[in-house]
């Protein structure tokens, strides 16, 4: 078998492979910082240790919070049922992102944005809902 213009093709291939794999080499050794949402707002710290529980278990909230919020929305807006009875604690909660969730999790930047930015998801909650005021740390 004869490779016509073998030299040029090989050089081209080498350049192509170098380009295509460049991002991997470039980022080698750089640790991709994992998101670490913070739960240390003054509101949460004020609570006694055993009461520091969200409306559902941590695992459920982590994977299903968006579905939960959607269901809360439907219940409040469509049926007028504004209280959520937690299956984890049996307590009643006011179904409101702005007034209930963000009351404890007043640190939107370190709580919401931390993971959402990492996952590159852009939920449009804050186009309408007003986020709690946070001090700018620059």
């Amino acid at each position, binding site marked *: 078998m004869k490779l016509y213009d073998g030299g040029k093709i090989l050089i081209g291939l080498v350049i192509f492979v170098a380009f295509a794999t460049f991002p991997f080499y470039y980022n080698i050794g750089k640790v991709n910082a994992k998101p670490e949402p913070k739960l240390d707002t003054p509101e949460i710290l004020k609570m006694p240790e055993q009461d520091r529980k969200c409306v559902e278990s941590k695992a459920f909230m982590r994977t299903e919070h968006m579905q939960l919020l959607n269901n809360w929305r439907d*219940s409040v807006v469509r049926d007028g049922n504004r209280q959520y009875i937690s299956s984890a604690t049996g307590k009643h909660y006011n179904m409101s992102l702005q007034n209930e969730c963000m009351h404890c999790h007043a640190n939107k930047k370190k709580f919401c944005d931390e993971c959402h930015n990492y996952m590159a998801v852009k939920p449009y909650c804050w186009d*309408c809902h007003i986020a709690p005021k946070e001090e700018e740390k620059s």
Partner: protein
Amino acid sequence: MSMDRRQFLKIAGISSILGLGATAASATHNIWVKGLSPDEVAKNPEALNAQHWAMVVDMSQFKTDEDFQKTISACHSIHNVPDFKNPDGSVDLKDEIKWIWKAKYENAFPDQDNPYMEEKLKEMPFLVLCNHCENPACVRVCPTQATFKRKNDGIVMMDMHRCIGCRFCMAACPYGARSFNYRDPRPFIKTENKEYPTRTKGVVEKCTFCTERLAVGKLPACVEAAPKGGMFFGDLADKNSEVRKIIETRYTIRRKPELGTGPSVYYLIGGTEHA
């Protein structure tokens, strides 16, 4: 492997049945499809309840412009309604967002046309808002069910998350009760009420009969801020309610009832003794 036609159809049939079954089984476990079950939710114990919320506005109690402005700004400040003004102070009427506003009698009640009517009445301002119709045109035209009529209390509500901004409802509403956010409203809200959301560019909005206040046992903001005896709010389905008694004993008018929408806002014109 070779397969005859009969065998092929058998396998295809069985696998499609299995596939459908699996989808149905996984769907029942899916919280998206399921929603919240009745034992996961409750009403606020202090909530005000009714089968058919209705309002009576006694225009004779609104004497000065201040009476109107107080009532309107009570609503608009609580609900983060923007006040769009151009840099030179002018306002483009199309941009205006109104939940409750002032309209001339001849505009609010064009069907009551009468060239020789009392001059005072003709120019009289009326307080107008969404009529929370029994048969709302806006709900019929909404392609996404963002606007809907609540079965339990008759309020015509909106789910802003679903509104796609098509403005069919604005064309359908005979009362002009709906406003579209042509611009981002946030910079035009004087003082934000942190307990109520704002809206975003591209959605329609209107009065909600203060569902968020009814849910905590408060009357609508306008009713509270109106001059004494100016506005009444209650359950039209309840024979003993104040609104029902007023409507049964005094002469009230509604806006464009001939359209068959069944508005739930009633007006007492008052004024002269003969009325």
